[in-house]
């Protein structure tokens, strides 16, 4: 196991070392101490390794992640897992705004709450939030699944495309073109699989409501002009 203490190692040194990793390495377990809210910790990793971060991180932690499993034992700042491609990011505390923004794949697990714009423009990522999410979440979400065990804030799924939003608690309001849908058997299985991967297999998929696109804003239509 490699241990890097960011109190006395420059962040660029850590990220450069992580970027050098590839599928052949035996150095598959990393521990990062004293992140001290620094931005861009473990960004751009592309190797099947586990990175455990002991403390709170700043902006964009784990951004663009491929393959790696990143565990943050603390809170994460703005844009955690932004544009992640695959792998898993697990935040044991809360996440700030725009968690998982534009994410294309992989699984983002937030044990606490996520604030505004969680999953904004998500493009295939799966996001599991065990607490609640803030306003304007899944804005322009295109693909993937957002699963929320708690509540959702205002304007959930505004201008959504084909992402699925599963919410167990209350939704303060839905955004433009976002409606409640009846889940298919396939969608129910998909939800069950995400719950299982996040260690929530005891929760039944039947406790959730599904929200998605009414598909009325895809193309310009004069009757919808007030919604644009």
């Amino acid at each position, binding site marked *: 196991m490699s241990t890097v203490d960011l109190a006395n190692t420059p962040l660029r040194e850590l990220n450069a070392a992580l970027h050098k990793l590839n599928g052949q390495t035996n150095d598959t377990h990393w521990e990062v101490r004293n992140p*001290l*809210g*620094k*931005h861009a910790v473990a960004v751009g990793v592309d190797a099947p390794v586990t990175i455990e971060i002991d*403390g*709170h991180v*700043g*902006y964009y932690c784990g951004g663009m992640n491929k393959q790696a499993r990143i565990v943050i034992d603390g*809170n994460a*700042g*703005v844009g955690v897992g932004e544009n992640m491609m695959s792998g898993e990011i697990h935040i044991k*505390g*809360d996440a*700030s*705004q725009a968690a998982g923004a534009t994410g294309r794949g992989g699984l983002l697990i937030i044990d606490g709450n996520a*604030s*505004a714009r969680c999953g904004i423009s998500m493009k295939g990522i799966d996001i599991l939030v065990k607490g609640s999410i*803030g*306003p*304007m979440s899944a804005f322009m979400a295109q693909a993937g699944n957002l699963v929320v065990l708690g509540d959702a804030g205002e304007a959930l799924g505004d201008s959504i495309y084909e992402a699925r939003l599963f919410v167990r608690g209350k939704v303060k309001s839905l955004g433009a073109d976002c409606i409640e849908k009846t889940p298919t058997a396939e969608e129910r299985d998909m939800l069950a699989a995400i719950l299982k991967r996040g260690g929530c297999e005891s929760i039944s998929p039947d406790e959730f409501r599904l929200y998605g696109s009414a598909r009325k804003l895809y193309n310009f239509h004069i009757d919808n002009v007030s919604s644009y």
Partner: protein
Amino acid sequence: MCGIVGLFLKSRMLEPQLGAMLSQMLGVMTDRGPDSAGFAVYGAGDGSHIKLTLRSNLGNDIDTIADEISADIGGPLASSKRGSHIVLTTPKSIEQKVRDWLAANRADVRVVGAGSRMELYKEVGLPSDVAERFALKDMAGTHGIGHTRMATESAVTTDGAHPFSTGVDQCLVHNGSLSNHNGVRRNLQRDGLTFQTENDTEVAAAYLTWRLRQGMDLNTALEACLSDLDGFYTFVVGTESGFAVLRDPIACKPAVMAETDDYVAFGTEYRALVGLPGVEQARVFEPEPAKVYVWERH
């Protein structure tokens, strides 16, 4: 982009270290605002005196100003120098006379802040340098607010630096930009408020002063901001006994807070809070959009 730091102490034990804690926090926020910096500290004071924090707009010597005023209108006036600023402690009974004397004799001198306990310092330059020049780390107090500015809405001048103070023991710092400040300023001017700059943040400070003057408490006055001020803002506000935070309804600008049994701390980024004692065990949270947070000393 700007940086805000704020600290409200619950524990008296920490009061001698307030300045040192705030100074360190301010330094970390240099990345977010290298143009100018400022801070307000609520320290010692009593109800019968007012502390006027003064600076010369033209950089003129103000070291002997207390003697000059005393010679003309009597005293007693105490003065202490901190960097380029002077804090003049005047009995409340002659505060207006002192202000009139300054207006008549020293047009270059600005009253940066006035309060029974508040002292306010600000200057152009890197935040850590500004904190050093004013020896912030040696200051004691119950609460304090600091700001590092990256100018967007008005020029890089000391006048445009935060905090802004428009009422006794009141100050406000702002991250963001207001879009209806000209209209609000005109309305406030009609109601007799005066402005020293064209800055949008000064309008927010004056708006709060106006609301508090109407008898609103801090909580209600900040709630009124939500309907009357348009734009992006995270505000941190200080009063003689209070410390408050408000973010706009879409929380456009970042903010994070940490609370322990000993203090409440605000930082634009968590990085600013990492040097605080026991922060690892603190309750760390993001203030919610459009929600007023107020802490009061009892």
